């Protein structure tokens, strides 16, 4: 068993806007690229050119169809990675202390040299956010790009997770959710950001911004004032035209 810090100095995390995520997978692949080359073991792929290609990803986008009570069906793109929970069950279940939550920023990490690949943390995580690398047999998970966000070899503007840096739609935001005045906290407040599966009691740091209501443009009647005909048929139209032209 591994203990969690009683509190962390910051609560770094992601705010993901489900209203603008177009499901392009840019975040998925940039994450794969950065984390294959950086933190710990590379993210491997098995049978990459074969019948059952399968690899380690720290971030995946799932797509769900939603059928509202009224109106047409909708498609929601839902990116999912470690939510860096305050009460992270993946940490407390770890038998070796390899999984831990950082005191300074709350990032949940795996110390790969202590990981025995038992997989208990993946079972404990209610979000399915951890993946065992089949090549190295160590547990991999989102590091919130801990090797980028403080990296003095990167320009300051690039010290953010790659998924945030690359997102073309600007649907991903990074910051301190422990600071109520941070831009991300404000965004969560303004847009009614929510926890994923709060009933699990994990207190996730990452937040999701719900999609705005869709298909809300009211259908209008033939006689709706904005489209009131100026006149019925072409000949009358030209009469209207002459008058309208006088005014311009």
């Amino acid at each position, binding site marked *: 068993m591994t203990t969690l810090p009683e509190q962390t100095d910051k609560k770094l995390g992601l705010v993901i806007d489900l209203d603008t*995520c177009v499901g392009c997978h840019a975040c998925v692949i940039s994450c794969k690229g950065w984390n294959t080359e950086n933190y710990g073991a590379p993210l491997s792929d098995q049978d990459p050119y074969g019948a059952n290609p399968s690899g380690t990803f720290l971030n995946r986008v799932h797509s769900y169809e939603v059928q509202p009570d009224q109106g047409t069906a909708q498609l929601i793109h839902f990116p999912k990675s470690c939510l860096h929970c305050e009460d992270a069950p993946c940490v407390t279940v770890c038998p070796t202390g390899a999984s831990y939550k950082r*005191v300074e920023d709350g990032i949940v990490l795996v110390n790969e040299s202590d990981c025995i690949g038992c997989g208990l943390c993946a079972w404990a995580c209610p979000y399915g956010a951890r993946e065992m690398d089949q090549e190295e047999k160590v547990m991999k998970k989102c590091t919130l790009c801990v090797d980028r966000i403080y990296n003095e070899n990167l320009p300051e503007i690039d010290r953010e997770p790659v998924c945030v840096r690359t997102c073309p739609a600007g649907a991903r935001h990074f910051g301190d959710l422990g600071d109520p005045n941070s831009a991300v906290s404000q965004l969560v407040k303004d847009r009614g950001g929510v926890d994923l599966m709060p009933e699990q009691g994990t207190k996730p740091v990452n937040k999701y911004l719900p999609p705005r209501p869709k298909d809300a443009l009211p259908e209008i009647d033939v006689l709706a004032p904005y489209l009131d005909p100026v006149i019925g048929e*072409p000949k009358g139209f030209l009469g209207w035209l002459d008058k309208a032209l006088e005014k311009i």
Partner: protein
Amino acid sequence: MNQPKIDLSPKVSDEIRKTTCYMCACRCGINVHLKDGQVAYIEGNRDHPVNKGVLCAKGSAGIMQHNAPSRLKAPLKRVGPRGSGEFEEISWDEAYQIAADWLEPIRNENPEKLAFFTGRDQSQSFTSFWAQAFGTPNYAAHGGFCSVNMAAAGIYTMGGAFWEFGQPDWDHTKLFMLFGVAEDHDSNPIKMGIGKIKGRGARVIGVNPIRTGYNAVADDWVGITPGTDGLFILSMIHCLMKAGKIDLNYLAQYTDAPVLLNCDEKSTEYGLYLRDENGKQLVIDRTTGKLAAFDKPGVRPDLSATHRAKGITHVPVFHNMAKLYLSDAYAPEAVTERCGISAKRIRAIAAEIGRVAFEEAFELDQEWTDFRGETHKTMTGRPVSFHAMRGISAHANGFQTCRALHTLQIILGTVEVPGGFRFKPPYPKPATAHPKPHIGMTPGAPLNGPHLGFVQGPDDLALKDDGTPARIDKAFTWENPMSSHGLMHMVISNAHAGDPYKIDTLFMYMANMSWNSSMNTGGVMEMLTDKDENGEYVIPHIIYSDAYASEMVAYSDLILPDTTYLERHDCISLLDRPICEADAAADAIRWPVVEPDRNVKGFQSALCDLGAKLGLPGFVNDDGSQKYADYADYITNHERRPGIGPLAGWRLGEKGLQSGRGGVNASQIDNYIDNGGFFVKHIPDGAQYYKPWNMKYQEWAVGMGLFDSPQPYLFSLYVEPMRKFQLAAEGHGERQPPEHLRQRIKDTMSPLPIWYETDQQGNEGFTINALTQRPMAMYHSWGSQNAWLRQLHGHNPLYLPTKLMRRNDLTDGDWARVSSPHGEITVPVMEMAALNENTVWTWNAIGKRKGAWALDRDAPEATKGFLLNHLIHELLPPKADGMRWANSDPITGQAAWFDLKVRIEKTVAPKESRPEYPPIKSPVGQGPDTLAWKVGK
């Protein structure tokens, strides 16, 4: 707590090299991080005008493309039968010799025997230059089977289209309306734009039978019936005109709405513009009530007044628009059933776009002067903008549909104004400023001009003296007069049929014609392998260049292996389709950020070598020696006109380096590399909107070398060249269409946009629309061999709407037999609710032939993947007279992929998708069993 110490500042890379992505047509700037000389990581370039730092999944997966096991390794000569995939490696010298032995006699005897067609080519200004020097009339790229309707409709109507040609004013638009299935050429900018406007609370309306991608985030989704977009748009035009919610001032000032038309049905000029002795369009000036040239200083064109001269009445174009569009035929109630959209909803959307355009109009405090010399204190913003993806254009009514959309934008006054749609340099550029097609052929000499262009009437058609088609693809003929991009999808079938003539050598680049880039894939494979009575191949020689072991490699005789995009020089040129933004001109390069480790060569460099070996003018010096050592040499030293070269940045002037015009600068490519791989020149304030009519923009464009003198013009709501084709069909003029095409030309070539039902010949019993789209993570890319991307999209079920699933007693994972008038496939199905209720679709080009792309033969792409292409024929079923017409737009020849109608029946699951084809032998072997691609220590 005992936290391990971790390195928070690891070294990121040894070096960053900045070049241009080529994972699709978007052409973003990328930072390629190198460790120990190897590609370690790719990210977006923050300074780049296209992507401003972001990068899509394709771009980030470039590292897997660059290292793909399917990369070709050396020139190949076919040793087995065509289609077997049996090759032997040869040297470049031998490859060039084989090519020259085929090409030299063709050039000296009959250059039309070479058909040179390039696919997803980003060097068309160069490849066309080569083809022109060779002298064949048979050149085009892939636009004809992709989206010529989109490009040509925009250029003929308003001097530019969506995509590379223009973009919404993301900073000011308040309502964005997006039409059409498929991902977008402007892949990252459109995502950035949607994100930006949603962040401000602006709204998006998506019109698309399928609610995926951008339509999934649209505030309102209109699940329209495929092929009826034009009808929906014209109905909105009907509503807006009837309510007077149109920008009369804009129409009068900047469009041909006030231009007078000959109204005498007996006249040989019936329906043509009234022009003055200089050929200028004439209007009535409201101030004087007299005729005046449209551009006369101070003229106030009248949208209403008519003119009678020499017994002939002339009315403004706007009268004809009123007559056509106010007709009840376009009332929402008349179109609702066909479009699958309620009449109330059509009205609601029309009202909303009108409301935003006029009630939310705003003024930018920016003075500007128009081409008539009038100075305006402000710029009026109409914050509704439109964009369309490929879907609306890939129908046989696609040209008129795209025209209708532009007409809608124009009557709202929202093109080239703040908040609306804006052109990117070198656009705006009207059709009349483009070349016309050239077919003047002389053995042993260059063609008399550029192959492709914009016809202005029957005189410009590419017909031989005997009236037969001059081009192998029959572009610019009566069958499809305005085929500005050629018809790549007809080349192989025409060459096989010897109609209009036989060819000797088919030379292609980046075009997977024996698989996903052809209609009637099985038939094309037969045509490529068919032999004549002498046992020789009907298409005698096939030369192909590709970087990867695609399906087409197996069907070629000689392979010129291309490099990956990180190993090559390229220029994304203003002479071609550059990377400009609406407020800046820009171009870019690629350069070898790593050197190839195989015996491969950039295709353009190979053309420099081959051009010199053949002694092509432009590719040899006066003494006969090779002019350009490679493509980089050409990029630097070629001048198309004096002072105008492939790249506009860092040219040499009298006082040093300058932009736009200027002499050759030997260090130009280094200047680009130092600047991050691109050049950008901002359009000055006051020149950023109203570009076609704004003298400050016109003068800036001349200075940049985009054109040689200011050329303000009016938007063509009425496309006069189309009327000229109709006149011919009505019996006027010397060049006459064949009898069987007369009626179709009269019916379809309306100079004002119309909607017509596409040809339904043979569709009885086939009632379901079938579409394809590429996933965002693979659009316009080579995705299926990419180890990372194929994990996202390795399967392509046929998606059926709930109603069709129920009706056919299908559940997810079941299999269905899908048949069309042309063929049959058996494929797995899956339910999708957010889908037009009479439409099915699948991801395109996931299906692969066994043995191709270095994938295992049991890869899901080869066992369960499939193509709809098998259901689509390049010809429609025979008519009563036995004739088969092309499955193309009758105006432009664009391949009508999305006109497909099918029937669906549940069936027992076969072992694999059908049809099944035997494996081809891989010329590169298979990929590895595992990957853990870390290049750093």
